[in-house]
């Protein structure tokens, strides 16, 4: 095994850039990372080797001792490496951790899209299964980490899990039964099912005045959401879901932005910006994923309707959320990955994936 420097820490593998394509898990003393759609070893970065007291389970006893002795408080500098000869990750020893990391990835990045037909995963079931896997992997969480909080995973779902039991699917019942044994230990009571608010209600309402703005358009176009710049469970994960229209209005030109939604969380308050040459404008989305705002020029003066008619709108960019660099290819790979998982659930599939696949025909 060869240790390389990863921003001041020792790591077993090449650094994996954060983003939609990486599944990570934070255990006691280390962060593990895998590219979601490639098989290969974990990249294990040691945040605190002394606290990674589980390492013998992964490297074997001699491997753990040898690695600890070789590192011995050395602070890694850029090009430095440490060879620990004869030490390797034992086959299968991190499989459950990878599965756990993938579950956490699904909670945050699963590309739900009505437009592209990628079904949502049941959040309560994903979280219940992550909670069970976390409890089973408790040796890796001697310290509390951002990923060790079993109670935090289960607490928001007590009503939903109860409701699932009444649905009667034996696989679901078994999962909920196992999870409820955990809730007993960590001090959570499963609650009575309560009716949940559905997004469809106001998606329909929002649709009513869409399209009315077609008249008087000076320019229109689309752009795509950069997933890493927005929270999950708000926007549809397809491309070109940001529709923008520059409206003819007196005395100044207005922009109307309308973003396709998908998920339970509100887009309200998320910033939106339009840039087109020297013209720009910014606002925040309302709870229907829409915004209307005036444009200004490079002198920060309002843009008159006549200026807008003469402007070249080619190359207009609309950004929703934080400004991040993310290629369409990245998102395409994630959608392909999700489709492949739904088309043929893998051996490490979560129950929520299997159920989504079954309902998706």
């Amino acid at each position, binding site marked *: 095994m060869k240790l390389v420097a990863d*921003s*001041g*820490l020792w790591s077993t593998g090449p650094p994996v850039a*954060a*983003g939609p394509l*990486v599944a*990570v898990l934070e255990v006691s003393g280390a*962060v593990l990372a895998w590219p979601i759609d490639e098989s290969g070893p974990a990249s294990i970065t040691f*945040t*605190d080797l*002394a606290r990674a*007291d*589980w390492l*013998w389970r992964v490297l074997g*006893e001699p491997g*753990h*001792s*040898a690695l*600890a002795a*070789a590192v*011995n*408080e*050395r*602070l890694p500098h850029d090009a430095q*490496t*440490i*060879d*620990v*000869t004869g030490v390797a990750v034992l086959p299968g020893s991190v499989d459950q951790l990878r599965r756990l990391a993938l579950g*956490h990835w699904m909670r*945050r*990045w699963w590309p739900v899209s009505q437009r592209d037909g990628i079904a949502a995963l049941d959040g309560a079931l994903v979280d219940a299964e992550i909670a069970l896997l976390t409890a*089973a992997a408790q*040796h890796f969480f*001697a*310290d*509390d*980490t*951002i990923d060790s*909080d079993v*109670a935090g995973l289960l607490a*928001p779902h007590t009503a939903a899990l109860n409701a699932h039991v009444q649905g009667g699917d034996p696989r679901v019942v078994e999962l909920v039964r196992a999870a409820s044994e955990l809730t*007993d*230990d*960590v*001090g959570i009571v499963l609650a009575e099912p309560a009716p949940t608010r559905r997004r469809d209600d106001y998606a329909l309402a929002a649709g009513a005045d869409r399209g009315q703005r077609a008249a008087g358009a000076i320019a229109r176009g689309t752009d795509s959401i950069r*997933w*890493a*710049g*927005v*929270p*999950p469970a708000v926007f549809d994960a397809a491309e070109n879901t940001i529709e923008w229209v520059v409206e003819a209005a007196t005395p100044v030109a207005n922009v109307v932005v309308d973003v396709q939604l998908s998920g339970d*969380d*509100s*887009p309200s*308050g*998320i910033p939106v910006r339009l840039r087109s040459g020297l013209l720009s404008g910014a606002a925040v989305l309302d709870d229907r994923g829409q915004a209307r705002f005036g444009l200004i020029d490079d002198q920060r003066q309002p843009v008159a309707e006549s200026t807008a008619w003469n402007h070249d709108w080619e190359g207009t960019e609309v950004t929703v*959320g*934080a400004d*991040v660099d993310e290629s369409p290819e990245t998102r395409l790979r994630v959608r392909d990955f999700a489709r492949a998982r739904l088309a043929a659930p893998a051996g490490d599939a979560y129950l929520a994936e299997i159920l989504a696949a079954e309902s998706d025909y």
Partner: protein
Amino acid sequence: MTTGARAETATAVMRPRQAVIDGAWRAIGPGVELLSSDDGGPLRRTIKRIIDPLVLRLRSNTQYSAPFVDAAVASAIHELILGNGPALCAAAAWFEALKRERRRLRITTGNAQELYFPVCFELAVTRGAPSDADSDAATTVLRGIHDDRDRTAIEVLNQFVSDQQVVAKLSEQLRHSWRDVRAGTEITGPFLSGLTTVLGPAESHRESVARQRVWSALIADPTPYNLGANAHDATTSLPWSIVDLGLSSVEPQQSPTVVGGSAGDRPLNRCVVDRVRATLRRALDRDELPDVPLLCAEEVDRSCAPWGLLAEDNQAALIAGIEIAMDLAPLADVVPRYHLASLIQARLRKEAYVMHARRYLAEGGPIHPRQQQVIDDLSAFARPYLSRLWARLHGRDVWQEPCADVDDVRSLLEGVARSVSLDHRQRIKSMLQVAG
């Protein structure tokens, strides 16, 4: 540069301590399933709450606490655990009894393993395995655990300080104590340069010994005392602003009061009664309940002492913490001055990476405007870091736990960063989950 092969041969006989414990546990055989994980090893909490404190008794048997142990220590650990096999089986049976009782009494607060494991082992040692007649015992034990233990002591405190004469007497004591704290004239340079060694690396045994020697000298140095005493009046001679550090809301530090604090008070501004109340809350795990009038009188002197701490080693540890804290910024690329700070900063950066990879943060900033407040807090990491460090040192000061061991101090400085970071990140997470 490539190194490593040399170190390997030197440690061929050392075994990871956790592996030794795991092996011994499996050798016990059936009967401890309730304290075991599905794969048959001991639960993490079994180790933390039973094996380490009650079977291996790490506090007195420090040789069992090293992360790697030689063959002799390994076999001693093995024998000790195996020898406690019958007691551990009985403890597992008690846990089952307590859990049954928990369900019957419809108790849902707290983590059952965390709360019950130690008492199960104590019951096992004193009474053996539970019999059918022991269900009363289980009820009593549960009631004892779940009754609000700190309430009693805090009520005693409230009653004590509701007496105007008591408060007047403590206030008088406080006036004198505050007046008596005076800075000496010694120079601070040697102390601060000594910190470079204490917070520096030690790759060999010799360097570790040297690091300890420097720390032993530093805790006898008058600098921490003088700096803390200077904070009371001549703020200009401090290398930092105690307001910026979040230790006080005003400069110079004002004499604390006996009563009349409010919830958001910075550590050095807290009133005496609030400090004692914090002590009583933290005293949950202690068997002996402290004498409240004595605690109050002592806390008056402590609150006047430099940095609000009586022991010189604790004062020195706080200065080390201040120096570390100045170097930490989870969301920025900074170059710390100390080796230990570099290490902690690298960890914080990695933890921020996890948040980024999980879509809780966009690169270096909020992923939703709702998070802005927490993000701003993160950029002032020193403030929560020092608040928490001060609270830990205050606890050590009250219980007279020494800070003389340099590795102990270093792991304290690291542990505080870990818990502040986790706390921050949980807040960033929950800011996203709040319905918009």
